[in-house]
Structures are given as structure tokens and as C-alpha cells.
């Protein structure tokens, strides 16, 4: 099987994020970047499918040279090769999806996996867009995957339950937490990654369709209110939760 895992290089979820001067992007200074956590599920699933069915796993990322660190992590986990579709611009989802679609079309893989969303922009758009650009079926927010010949059975998370869907290969899957337990790169894997290639190509350019015009941090939380310290405070607490906070 030819398997492609698309991976993004995003700020560590534990990082403190500030808005950069200009107010339309984040300040990347001093921020630790990691592989997008949902993309780890995508890489892991590709590796498991390869272990079962044979084939090749290629990790692909659209971005600057910094993304090579994330590609090397995918290689250290066990991907066979990596491709950086290079661009130094902060792109909208369509710009990223277009670059990926061009590359993927040329490779004609059996399966393309994404994380369900990237925790930087949180658009949850790229996987679906790529499928649409390539005219492929897409199944999103997948927590279970089985391949049988040319058909894919996927389990999806839906509000309050699960849904099972079928599609045919080739197709695009976006991975949700629960799909698998991603492996840690072993020390041998990390050493091995050094000798695996990272192919660099310029990312195809398309005009942006969406532009960020403003970005701001949420207002600082107001101080909490203590309505009392014993049982006599309960009625007042209930009233406030109902009337002010409107949560009950």
C-alpha cells in the first residue's frame, strides 16, 4: 500500500502564546513547536497499515524549513520517507490543501491520512479540501479503521455516539484521538531517521482565499466570587449559576 500521512508543525499545546506585532499572527519567538498531536495518530495508523499490508509510508508537510523537525519525528517513528513542500508564507487552509493535492495526485496513494485538525489554526479544513480537490471520498474524525481489499470501513465519532461508514480506496481519512496509541520514536528509529531522505520541493502557490485580519487573546478571566463557605450558601450559589452564569 502507498500511504501518505500529512503532518503539520504546530506550537506545543503547553506553550504560552502571544500575538505578534501587527495583530494577525502569533509570536513564534521562544515557542516550542511539535508535530500536531492529531497528526501523530495519522502517522501511527499509516505505520500499522504498512506493518500489516506492506508498502510505503510517506510523511508530507507544507511549510518552512522548521517543519523538517516534525518530518524527522515522523521518520523516527518509522515513516520511509518525507517530503517538505516548501513555503515561507503563513498560508490559509486552501493554500495548504492545494499544495498537498498537487503532490498527492502525482503519487496516487491508496490512502491519505490527516489529523482531524491542526491545533494551531483549528480550521479542521485541510483534509476535506484535499479530498475535494482530488475528487476522493473523505471520512473525518475517525476513531477506528479497517481495510478490506479496496474498501474502507471507518468508525467515526459523532455527538453522543459512534457511526460506521464505508468508502472505497483511494480515500482521505482524518484521525481523531482514540484511533490508536502513537508509538514513541525509539532510539534506533531516531538514529535511522538521519539516513532517510527529506525531499524538498517548492509548494505550489495559489492565491489565498481567506485572510486573517485580526487575532487577539481571550480577555483575562475575572476573579472568582466566593458566595459563602458552608451549606447556607447553596441557595445563593444555585441562583447565581442559574441567573448569572446561566449554566443550570
Amino acid at each position: 500500500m502507498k500511504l501518505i500521512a500529512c503532518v503539520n508543525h504546530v506550537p506545543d499545546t503547553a506553550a504560552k502564546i502571544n500575538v505578534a506585532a501587527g495583530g494577525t499572527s502569533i509570536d513564534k519567538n521562544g515557542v516550542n513547536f511539535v508535530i500536531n498531536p492529531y497528526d501523530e495518530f495519522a502517522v501511527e495508523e499509516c505505520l500499522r497499515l504498512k506493518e500489516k499490508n506492506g508498502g510505503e509510508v510517506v510523511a508530507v508537510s507544507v511549510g518552512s524549513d522548521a517543519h523538517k523537525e516534525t518530518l524527522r519525528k515522523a521518520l523516527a517513528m518509522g515513516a520511509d520517507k518525507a517530503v517538505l513542500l516548501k513555503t515561507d508564507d503563513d498560508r490559509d487552509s486552501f493554500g495548504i490543501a492545494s499544495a498537498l493535492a498537487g503532490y498527492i495526485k502525482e503519487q496516487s496513494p491508496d490512502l491519505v491520512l490527516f489529523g482531524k485538525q491542526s491545533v494551531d489554526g483549528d480550521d479542521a479544513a485541510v483534509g476535506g479540501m484535499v479530498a475535494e480537490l482530488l475528487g476522493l471520498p473523505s471520512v473525518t474524525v475517525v476513531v477506528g479503521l479497517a481495510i478490506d481489499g479496496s474498501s474502507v470501513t471507518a468508525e467515526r465519532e459523532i455527538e453522543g455516539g459512534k457511526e460506521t461508514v464505508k468508502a472505497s480506496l483511494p480515500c482521505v481519512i482524518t484521525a481523531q484521538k482514540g484511533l490508536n496509541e502513537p508509538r514513541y520514536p525509539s532510539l534506533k528509529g531516531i538514529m535511522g531517521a538521519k539516513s532517510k531522505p527529506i525531499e524538498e520541493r517548492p509548494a505550489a502557490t495559489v492565491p489565498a482565499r481567506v485572510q486573517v485580519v485580526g487575532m487577539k487573546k481571550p480577555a483575562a478571566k475575572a476573579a472568582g466570587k466566593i458566595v459563602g463557605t458552608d451549606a447556607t450558601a447553596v441557595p445563593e450559589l444555585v441562583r447565581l449559576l442559574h441567573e448569572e452564569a446561566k449554566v443550570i
Partner: protein
Amino acid sequence: MAQFQGVDYFMIDGLLSEEERMVRATVRSFVDDEVLPIIEKHYRDGTFPMPLVGKMAELGLFGTTLPAKYGCAEMNNVAYGLVMQELERGDSGVRSFASVQSGLVMYPIYAFGSEEQKDRWLPALAKGEKIGCFGLTEPDYGSNPGGMVTRAERKDGGYLLNGAKMWITNGTLADIAVVWAKLEGEVRGFLVEKGTKGYTAPEMKGKHSLRASVTSELVFQDCWIPESNILPNIKGLKGPLMCLSQARYGIAWGAVGSAMATYDAALNYAKSRIQFGKPIASFQLIQEKLVHMLNEITKGQLLALQLGRLKDAGTVKFTQISLAKRNNVHHALEIARMAREILGANGILDEYPVMRHANNLESVKTYEGTHEMHTLILGEDITGIAAFH
């Protein structure tokens, strides 16, 4: 539980390669996911967490610096040090297991063994299929191992081994013991296999420290050791001392990991524990403690890292390893005790890692050369006068 974020006040991460950081990230996640959830129970029960052996092997944590042809990761010493740091952030006993397997068993077989010994043992030890131990200390010879009384006698086609070792980490678990004994008055290394007639390894009980690690006696009564099981390429006390340099190096890093664990616990606790209407972190006496902890961790990190760079360059001196082991363990224990004080009564509970680390470090301060012995090693180095006798 939230992922541990590390302690890096001096941007030391910038001095690490991407590969070294990736190794640390792997072991850090492993410790968060696999070690911390089970370690308190093992500590309480006085058992070593055996399921970790296969997992550590799979990640490549045994014999990290040895050649790939033996199934090892062939990484540099800084990467190996970071492995030890992260493991000991989990527990000194878990780090001890990996130290012994790597530095005290795989290393001597690699450095002093025959080709057959290397081919037979190194891949199996790297995979965790076989466990090793290192027998140097005896009931009557601790800091002065040169006085050892365990002896081997040359016989036709092999040796007869008699004597006893004590305080041997992994002893009862081990498939293979690297045992140091005198042959015709000279210290030699022997590979003693589990099941050898006359060889027993009873576990020592009653420890208040390093409880998630197995410590044993090794007893040899007319044990037959075939010629093929003597380490051919080393003679004299230099052999075990070279092994100890490997393991002490790892301890210098490991102690930093332990200190990070107790500092992290103390810092978080101090920010959330309210007394006199304020978090205790707002009191100067508590801040002074926290700052001292951070200060010593930062110095220890830099010592360990430079020690690693020297080791990778092949220029490290054993006295430098002594200084780093001595300093980093001393301060890790001091930091653990300060953390215990900051947590007040909670500091003695196993809900927090602090008392376990403090207790463990009492052993770490003693083994691999006591704090005092390293003082004397350094004292001799700078004055030219040995003060051991």
C-alpha cells in the same frame, strides 16, 4: 496527568541537537505514561516493575552508546545521559536497572569480552531478553574493593569460583553476573550464568531506599566457570573502575532528573497551598528554597552536559566524573529534602514523589563510590596526596 515540561532556566536546550532533544522527549513520555502510574505501588511492595524491561529495550534504552551491530542505538553519550536523566525523574530504581544493564554489564562485555561473548550476550541484553548484574562489592569490602576476598582458582579448562558479593543490583533477576574476583592475586572479570552449580543470588530485604529495585547477595561455592567465561581483555582493578566510570557518568545525569521531579512537585505545591490566606509560595522563606533548588539544578545540568561533551570528545577524566556525580547527587538529595519540607505533612505521603526520591537518593549517594570517596579522589587529584589510607 499533564506532560512534564522540564526545567530549563538557562536555555540549555539550545545546546542540544535535535536528535538529543528527540531522545529526551521519547523517554520523558515513556516515564509519564509507563513509569509514574505504576511506580509508587512497586515501591511500596518492594518489587521491580518487570513489565518495563521489554518496553525499555524496545525503545533502545539498554547499551544506548554501543554499536548497531549488537542491536544497540549507537548514540552519543549526551543522548545516553538524557535517557538516564528522564528515567531517574521517574525513579532511581528504574534508572539503576538501566545503568547496571548498560554501564556495568554490556559495557564490560563490549570493552573486555571476546568476540563470542559479545555476540552471545550483547544483542540479548539490548533486547532485554537477558538481564545482567555487576558484582564488585563484598560484605567486608565496599569503598575498598581492592581488598576483595572472592577468588578464582585455575583448573583444567576453567576456574573454580568461591566467595560472596553483597548489595548487587538486579542480582536475583540476573541471567548473567559480571563478577570480579582475584585470580592468582589479580582482579579478573568472570561471566557467571544463572543456574551455575553452587551459585545462588538471594534477595536482600528490609530496604527503606531503592525499594523498586532488586538488591541481592551473590554466593559462590565451588562454582565452575568455563574458560570461555573469563573476560579475556582486562586485568586488575582498572576493569571494574572503568565500568564504574560509565555508570557514575549516568548517575550525574540521573540525579538531575530526580531533582527536577522533586523541584517540580514543590513548586506546584507551593503555588497552590494556602496558609495565612496566601499561597505559601508568596513567603520569602519558601521562595528562597525554590530558588536554591532551581539554582542547583541549573548548575547540575550544565555540569552533566559538559561532562557528556567531554566524554563524547574522548577527553573526559574520571576525576571530572567524580566531581559531577558527587555534586549532582548531593544537591539532588538536598533538593528532595527541601521539597519534603515545602510539602509539609503531604511531603511524607506517596501521593507525591518527593519522599520516594529522597529515600532513593540515600542509596545513590552511597553507591558507585560514596560522596566521601569522590571527595578523596578529587582531593588526591588536586593536591597530589592520597588520603584514603
